[in-house]
């Protein structure tokens, strides 16, 4: 394999791995948060607006950890600095 192929393969593999592992934790956390909020609403229906507003905010905060992983995967796939540098080097030597 050439240098470019190695960089491409590792980038794609790592991007998939990043999204996969980055989705596990937030999924578990969001499930816990939602189930706790549901039981809280079932116990106290009067507090439903406050609980659901707090739930939305905390869900978005939990989800942002998954979004960080997504951003890293997108950078690896579409804006990889090593890939760009290696491509420039290959073009310089190749003509």
């Amino acid at each position, binding site marked *: 394999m050439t240098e470019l192929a190695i960089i491409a393969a590792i980038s794609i593999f790592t991007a998939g791995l990043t999204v996969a592992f980055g989705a596990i934790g937030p999924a578990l956390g969001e499930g816990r948060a939602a189930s706790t909020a549901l039981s809280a609403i079932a116990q106290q229906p009067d507090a439903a607006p406050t609980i659901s507003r707090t739930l939305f905010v905390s869900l*978005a*905060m939990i*989800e*942002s950890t998954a*979004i*960080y992983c*997504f*951003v890293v995967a*997108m950078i690896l796939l579409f804006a990889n600095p090593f890939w760009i540098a290696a491509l420039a080097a290959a073009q310089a030597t190749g003509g």
Partner: protein
Amino acid sequence: MNLSPDQTIMFEVWGLPINATIFYTWIVMALLTIVSMLITRNLRPDVPPNRWRTTLEVIVQGIQSQINEVARGSSRYLLYYAGTLFLFVAMSNLLLVIPGFEPPTSSLSTTTGLAISVLIAVPLFGITSRGIGGYLKTYLQPSFIMLPFNIISEFSRGISLAIRLYGNIMSGAVIAAILLSVAPFFFPVVMDVLGLLTGMIQAYIFAILATVYISSATAPSPQPQKDTP
């Protein structure tokens, strides 16, 4: 694939390239400013409020009540600052439904700028409320050992603010673009609706987090006011 609208050059002004981020930021700013100026042009006691003025009052009072729930007895400047942040981010996320409009918040430059403004606003509000010595003392708050951690948390706060907003909006755009090539006509519309919801929630979170950071830096008011107008 374009990860940010920074690379799209719209036009040049005297040889200065204007990219899509700046262009659409200007559009959002102009829209907010001109609409508010047009509505509040006849702001006199003898003019009865029309429906536009009532709409603005509902928005401003909604923001104020949300801020009062988080930070009791806060100054009016906090309303101006956090309300501006919320209105700008919400408007640029909502204009996503217009075809061809790229939200300025889907560029890391815009969100970093907003996060830096929050990082600057926190010490400003803290110093005006506690004085310089009192504000610097909050860095040593639990004990002297926590000083480096407090400084680190200040910066990681800014980074997470910037990346959270950018990642959420950018991921909506990227997913819509991917779905457009896989299953056009229906699924991108559903994802855009989801993007609207995410955009509103992210705008709310950005403003609320800025409020929380600022109110944790300012001194607690001596007695909590129950019903501020």
